[in-house]
């Protein structure tokens, strides 16, 4: 299972037109254990920099991670 560490994050309140219904939602850049970084959505509990997170699912091409 893909895991990583939160490099940075934000909670988006003002969403672009196609995601208005999702707001507010948390977005994070995750440093992946396997190398590289990925911009992901966070599901469940809010995370902060340094938190360990794990991949949950892919929804319409968007990777969702949650606190590990």
């Amino acid at each position, binding site marked *: 299972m893909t895991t990583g560490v939160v490099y940075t994050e934000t909670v*988006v*309140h003002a969403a*672009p037109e196609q995601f208005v219904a999702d707001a507010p939602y948390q*977005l994070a850049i995750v440093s992946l254990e396997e190398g590289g970084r990925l*911009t992901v959505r966070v599901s469940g509990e809010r995370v902060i*920099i340094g938190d360990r997170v794990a991949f949950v699912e892919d929804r319409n091409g*968007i990777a969702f991670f949650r606190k590990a």
Partner: protein
Amino acid sequence: MRPVAIIGIGKTAFGAFPDRDLRSLAVEAGQKCLADAHLSPSQVEAYYLGNFAGPSFVGQNHLAPYIAGAMGITGVPCTRFEAACASSGSAFYHAVSSVAAGLNDVVLVAGVEKMTSQTTPKVTEILAGAGDTCGEVRAGATFPALFAMIARRHMYQYGTTREMLAAVAVKNHENGAKNPLAHMRKVITIEQALKGKPISEPLTVFDCSLISDGAAAVLIAPLERAAEFTDKPVKVLGVAQTSDYVALDQKDDITTFRAVVAAAQKAYKMAGVTAQDIQFAEVHDCFTIAEIVAIEDLGFVKKGEGGPYELAGCTRLTGPLPINTSGGLKSKGHPVGGTGAGQICDLVSQLRGEAGERQLARHSLGLAQNLGGSGATAVVTILGVA
């Protein structure tokens, strides 16, 4: 390379103008600029236009000859440059290159954006097109979100605080309130800035620049011919454009813009000056954190010291290094394609001693920094009294 001078400037007010279309704004700026240099349209040898998203905002393409034609400029190269929010900074860089190389003598550079005819969620979506639409944008990133993530990381690595971000907004509104062409001429307090509506945490509405309509134009010519057009020529001492990856998640350290650092080093070298010689600057404060990162990347302060420097008031009109005396993108407004050319106009106003209430005592050497996206394009320009 021939030395290049700025011989004329022209700007519209920045703001929300429901009765104005994109072309009329760009034409107004261009005509003011031609009048400033006592030039007729037939003397213009090329028209370089910066525009980010005219096709998306107003459905018009082929913009450069469309606008030039409306000013009576035909039969010359008319080209649109797109580099996100650095579109007209990029147009300026390429225009200077062409004059310096001897291809053209008199070139009109302009920038324009007409943004306010769309709803804010639609504007947010169009602006997000300057990010990686297959990655970060697909996941739901907006430009405020990208800069919010930069702010979080800057806070984590350097101890930057919300108060330091707010200090940037307060200072830029203080300056913009004195600028007759600014979009939001309103003074704000630290408390107001901190309590603003959240946009993308930790950024509030007071950390974000404005959605504006507006245009700006600059005329350039070889320095040796400048006296034919103006008594107050301004010399282009250095100019550089550089690039980096578009996606924020591809950058090793998001608390610095490598493209800005590289462009600044090139521009300083070309001008034969150092960061410490610069007396004032217009920097790209699309978000308050961007001004803090900019003054660090330009070498005005050490990495991580941008926030405390702003909080201490060092960048105010009365401080040792005034930043964004125009009010910056925050208060003056940010018609994205017009911003780079607008910064050049603002520097020239100070250098000529025509900045009114905002006029600085030391005004012989200034710098402009224009940023595209989350740092994929950077243009740094150094201007001096000729």
